[in-house]
């Protein structure tokens, strides 16, 4: 069935490269890996010709070994009550090149989920109407679901006007051992 769908898409979208990725043997949910340039056209074809009108789940997966981040879309059809068709798009891990086309213009349901993928994985969605962080706060700079993310030792540390005073007080009184002072300076640099 997935082979058939692959043939149909290959005919309708010229120049597309499609690859089938198998799921676990028991799950039986093979996925279609689409190249970035033709992802939007493929999704549009699936929505309009295959009646896949319900984009259920959007998420990212980080593969540091491949050097890529994968965005996974699970598409269902409410009209035909079929699904899922799994669509995968891959982008390089480097933050500047980590871009995929947004499917929010096709399915509104992707809006918050793509924002979440941007927030947690750093994938930029071209064509998204409102790409902001959604779960982490705006000042947060990292993307915590990446595999190489190192959580800070003190989650609640924030710069305050008293930081310098505190450091000086520590130096004068010498209460805090040098190891803790290192950390304090590290946190200050951050």
């Amino acid at each position, binding site marked *: 069935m997935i082979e058939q769908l692959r043939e149909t898409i290959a005919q309708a979208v010229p120049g597309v490269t499609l690859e089938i990725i198998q799921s*676990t043997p*028991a799950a039986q949910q093979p996925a279609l890996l689409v190249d970035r340039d033709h992802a939007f056209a493929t999704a549009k074809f699936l929505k309009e010709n295959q009646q896949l009108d319900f984009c259920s789940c959007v998420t990212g997966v980080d593969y540091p070994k491949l050097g890529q981040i994968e965005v996974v879309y699970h598409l269902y059809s409410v009209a035909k009550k079929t699904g899922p068709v799994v669509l995968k798009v891959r982008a390089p891990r480097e933050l500047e090149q980590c871009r995929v086309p947004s499917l929010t213009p096709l399915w509104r349901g992707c809006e918050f989920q793509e924002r979440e993928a941007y927030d947690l994985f750093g994938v930029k969605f071209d064509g998204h109407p409102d790409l902001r962080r959604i779960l982490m706060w705006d000042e947060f700079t990292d993307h915590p679901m990446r595999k190489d993310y190192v959580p800070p030792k003190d989650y609640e540390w924030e710069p305050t006007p008293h930081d310098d005073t505190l450091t000086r007080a520590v130096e004068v009184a010498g209460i805090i051992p040098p190891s803790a002072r290192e950390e304090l300076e590290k946190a200050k640099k951050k």
Partner: protein
Amino acid sequence: MIQQISPIPTGMIETQTIEVSIGPQHPSTHGVFRMDAVLDGETVVGLKPVMGYLHRNHEQLAERMTWLASIPYTDRLDYFNSMTNNWALCLSVEKLAGIKVPERAEYIRVIVSELTRILNHSCVIGFMLQDLGAWGTPLLYAFREREKILDLFESLSGARMMCNYMRFGGVRVDMTDAMVAQAKDIVAKFPRFLDEFEQLLSNNEVLLARCQKVGILPKELAINASISGPMARASGVDYDIRKVDKYGVYGRFDFRVPLGEVGDVYDRYYIRVLEMRESIKILNQALRDLPAGAFVAPEVKLRNFKIPPGDGYGRVEAPKGELGFYLVSDEGGKMPYRYHCRPPSFINLTTLEDMCLGHKVADVVIILGSVDIVLGEVDR
């Protein structure tokens, strides 16, 4: 808090829109949730939901522990419906690993999940009425009934809300005959409570005036915006995962999928009443047919549990909508490589702005109440 945006010339006098932050500490937001509303007088002309105050990166926590160890964490997602949360994770894992669940376990799962649905829907109606200004009374009526179901859950799993009841390949403890009798008793008495509830509410003039033609969600938008659960069905989307996927043993039961016509707040209220009546039907059949046998698949070894490499997506019809888990297993297979939860109440908030535009601020509160969100699930 209040900020001037842009002047709107109206000829005689100049008026301006103001931006008002509703929440995050407000009883009507059902937790720490904030809405940035732009108001023209009392009319809403823009509204952006702001969430993440309760974010704890549930997904990353689960990726750092074994498959089994994340079951208790799913209880905390939607803390009203721990049973269906457990089921969603167990169903996904069973799908990936190809585990067959014994018949009795499937029936017990249906029973506890439908009880959860009743519990959730009656409480949601209570909270909705609370948002309308009916302080306490409907909510406490609902909580009185909820308590009976929670008593059953407590004797079944040891905890009232954080049940941690299901395991891969079945359930943790068997349902004794006394518990089945208790469940039958609850189910027999519940329709009477529902009649009483409806008599108070369904034709109540204040409820009709406040809820009808408020927060209309068109059918096309509901499908396009991935709205699921009672909210989608209130807009007339004929989509119930219990009917479509027929997961578990849902294919065997005779029940209908109630649909709304208008898609307003009143439809979202009434669809929940009707769904409770359908749940009672399912419960009656499940309790009647409950077979004897094993309550957990004996071949599943929960210690050193492994899943072959690959991915998969499993979903259930939770009381709030489609709850799914996208799981990826890698070479070792002991821990999830990727664990993603598709939360229904998070995605149902997508159309909050569309529903609120053009309504008064007081209506925003009831529209949000009718979406039925739980912040533990929205923020994860």
